[in-house]
């Protein structure tokens, strides 16, 4: 016979067990049905609006074949979360695409045919380290997505873990698959062929950059969405180039300047990367550049200063020493209104010069990024030795410098009031097919209209190339094969950055903000999409202010550690004394 209290205890124990079982069941059910609140400022863990727009705009079915060795990941605690995270993300993609995105999960762990298929699609088998029963083990797996759309070649996305960058990679692949036109980015070249002297960050590379050398990382990154081409500057820049990056400015001879000018006058967009200093190849010291196309730049409305900007907000060396000549440009000093800088947090420049904007009539200028107020500049004599370089003692030497600028509007040709350089009369500089297309006309229509008009007037149809009626054109005396140049551009833009070295391979790898910054510029100036914002979302926290003195740092640390504990201690003692006094007074009362 059990007593009543025993029965109560048993029933209570049973109740506890039942509640616990229910909670386990509830948690299990919740694995499939859940909601998330993303508290981060940039909504880092939620699909970006640009992604949602891209998916909503799909007009045909995109198929995603996800090759994921789920079985192997489940065996390793370190990787067990991968399948869940990828599925969660792709579920959101599918939901946003409203039936235009088909996701198929394939596990090649035990299926040799699937492994062959994955390899055939371009995915690589990768090796990861995990735990075995007694020691570390290396196992091989597949983790990638193959995207198919219409009759276009498949796009492959290799997934890296953690999967923070997957959204951006997927977006790029989808955009590339579905975009109607190819966007071409040109990089000016001073060498006739690729791979001529593959350079890293040697002394020579400082002054001569090459997309197959020290700019290779940038080229590879841009090639995920754009066509990237080397542009020799000894001839006309093709009209299909949507944006030209000019990085070897010291090598722009008269002919190159002419072609650059006419590219701009035809509506092409420019990104100028130039510093007013160069490193001497023999002795490796910095000196002011003797040659820069200053007159050309002045016509467009900007100047590259012959100085070296140093900043207390800078990258540290491996030993923690401040590298003042690698200033960090931070969000606080970016133009908050410009979409070109939207979402960017920070990036570094390397031995950079300040720029100055003096926009001419019809052109507007906007400084996109400045140094911090803790910056100063060297002119004439340049010292970058970390052992001797110190910030100036006088406060008056500190100021902010303009580092990145945007000029937009209708530019006037550098050659509108001067003689053309010799040897540029090589081809017809009249309006091209692309010019007409830019203005929403077709060449045939224009020719047809002109011929119709002349026929009406009883004239024979002309054989001369069509002229753009909206553009002022000048017939050049003595240059029969160059019938005219454009003297004024349509609405276009130039971005000027007082540095070309920040895109070198090693700098890009060590400064994570540089590539997103450049990508954003290119993306906004060409496609005008917001996909770069997806990349610019970063969980990386901001850096610490560089202008804090050692004494201030010590004060912050000790106050942070001791401040509140001491307050609590003092309050505790006060409380104790008060209580004791009260107890004493209670005791002495009759």
């Amino acid at each position, binding site marked *: 016979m059990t007593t009543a209290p025993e029965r109560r205890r048993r029933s209570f124990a049973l109740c506890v067990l039942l509640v616990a079982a229910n909670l*386990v069941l509830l948690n299990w059910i919740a694995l499939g049905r859940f909601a998330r609140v993303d*508290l981060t*400022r940039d909504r880092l863990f939620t699909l970006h609006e640009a992604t949602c727009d891209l998916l909503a705009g799909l007009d045909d079915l995109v198929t995603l074949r996800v090759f994921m060795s789920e079985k192997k990941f489940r065996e390793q605690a370190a990787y067990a979360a991968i399948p869940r995270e990828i599925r969660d993300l792709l579920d959101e993609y599918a939901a946003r695409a409203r039936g235009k995105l088909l996701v198929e999960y394939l596990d090649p762990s035990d299926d040799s045919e699937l492994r062959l298929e994955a390899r055939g699609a371009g995915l690589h088998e990768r090796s990861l380290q995990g735990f075995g029963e007694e020691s570390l083990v290396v196992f091989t797996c597949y983790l990638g997505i193959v995207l198919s759309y219409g009759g276009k070649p498949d796009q492959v996305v290799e997934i890296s873990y953690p999967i923070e960058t997957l959204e951006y990679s997927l977006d790029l692949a989808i955009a590339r698959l579905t975009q109607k036109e190819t966007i071409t980015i040109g990089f000016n070249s001073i060498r006739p062929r690729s791979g001529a002297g593959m350079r890293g960050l040697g002394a020579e590379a400082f002054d001569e950059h090459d997309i197959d050398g020290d700019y290779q990382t940038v080229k590879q990154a841009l090639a995920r969405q754009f066509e990237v081409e080397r542009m020799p500057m000894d001839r006309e820049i093709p009209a299909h180039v949507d944006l030209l990056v000019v990085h070897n400015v010291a090598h722009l001879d008269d002919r190159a300047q002419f072609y650059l000018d006419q590219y701009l006058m035809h509506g092409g967009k420019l990104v100028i990367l130039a510093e007013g200093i160069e490193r001497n190849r023999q002795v490796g010291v910095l000196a002011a550049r003797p040659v820069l196309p200053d007159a050309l730049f002045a016509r467009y409305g900007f100047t590259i200063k012959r100085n070296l900007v140093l900043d207390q907000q800078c990258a540290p060396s491996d030993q923690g020493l401040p590298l003042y000549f690698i200033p960090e440009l931070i969000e606080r000093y970016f133009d908050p209104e410009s979409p070109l800088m939207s979402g960017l947090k920070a990036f570094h420049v390397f031995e950079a010069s300040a720029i100055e904007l003096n926009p001419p009539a019809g052109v507007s200028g906007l400084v996109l990024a400045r140094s911090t107020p803790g910056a100063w500049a060297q002119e004439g004599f340049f010292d970058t030795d970390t052992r001797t370089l110190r910030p100036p003692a006088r406060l008056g030497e500190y100021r902010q410098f303009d580092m990145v600028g945007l000029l937009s509007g209708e530019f006037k040709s550098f050659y509108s009031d001067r003689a053309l350089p010799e040897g540029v009369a090589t081809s017809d500089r009249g309006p091209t097919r692309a010019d007409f297309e830019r203005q929403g006309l077709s060449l045939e229509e224009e020719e047809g209209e002109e011929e119709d008009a002349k026929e009406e007037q009883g004239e024979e149809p002309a054989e001369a190339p069509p002229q753009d009626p909206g553009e002022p054109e000048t017939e050049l005396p003595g240059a029969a094969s160059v019938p005219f140049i454009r003297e004024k551009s349509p609405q276009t833009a130039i971005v000027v950055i007082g540095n070309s070295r920040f895109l070198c391979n090693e700098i890009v790898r060590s400064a994570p903000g540089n590539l997103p910054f450049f990508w954003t510029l290119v993306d906004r100036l060409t496609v005008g999409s917001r996909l770069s914002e997806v990349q610019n979302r970063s*969980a990386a926290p901001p850096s*610490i202010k560089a202008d804090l003195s050692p004494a201030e740092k010590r004060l912050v*640390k000790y106050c*942070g550690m001791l401040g509140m504990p001491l307050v609590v201690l003092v309050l505790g003692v006060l409380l104790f004394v008060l209580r004791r006094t009260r107890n004493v007074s209670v005791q002495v009362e009759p």
Partner: protein
Amino acid sequence: MSRALTIAGKEFRTFFKTPVAPIVLFAFLLLAGLLFFFVPDYFAQGQASMRGFFAYLPWLYLIFAPAIAMKMWAEERKVGTIETLLTMPLGEGTIVLGKFLAAFGLLALALALTFPVPIIVALTAASAVDPGPIAGGYLGALLLGAAYVAMCLFASALTQSQVVAFIIGVGLCLLFVVIGVEPVANVFPQGLGELLKGLSLLQRFANIQRGVVDTRDVLYYLSMLAVFLLLNAAAVKRR
């Protein structure tokens, strides 16, 4: 609920009738500050972030939560006041909830007193600090602390010795922390290891700390809370 709050208020005031609460708060804040600012050096890391602060918190709680909760039942049992308490027309559930709220209140107070840390982080940052992960971190820290306190209260209900309650509490919390650590989870067969990792307090805390509040993680913490408070009530009833 109002009765539970009355008990909670009374228990909370009890903490401050002895020097225990100020000493515990002082030790917690000092340790938290020392670890965050000096191990490793805050400025040497170069990043204005509270990740380091939240990374230490589960381990700090391992000492702090048992220290708060160890006397809640053990003391009552030792001095014999538990009989009086249980004969009151309140019910075990109400009393357990009241004691839990009191202990959790002290833990929340300790956490609230760390408010200078995010201020310092924001003031020393070169650009704006994202408040999301900080808010997520504090929310996660509250949920984690609630789970720790519930476990330690249960431990306190098992014995009349505060020292034993402290040791059991530390052991129990440690168990739910280390099962999520990879080398430990990998000792078990794959399915079990995965399950244990899913049960780890540390793993869930890491998720919320990023700034993402997922219903699965919140539900997990609430379930842990419910189970251990029920077990606490069962342990009280058993005696």
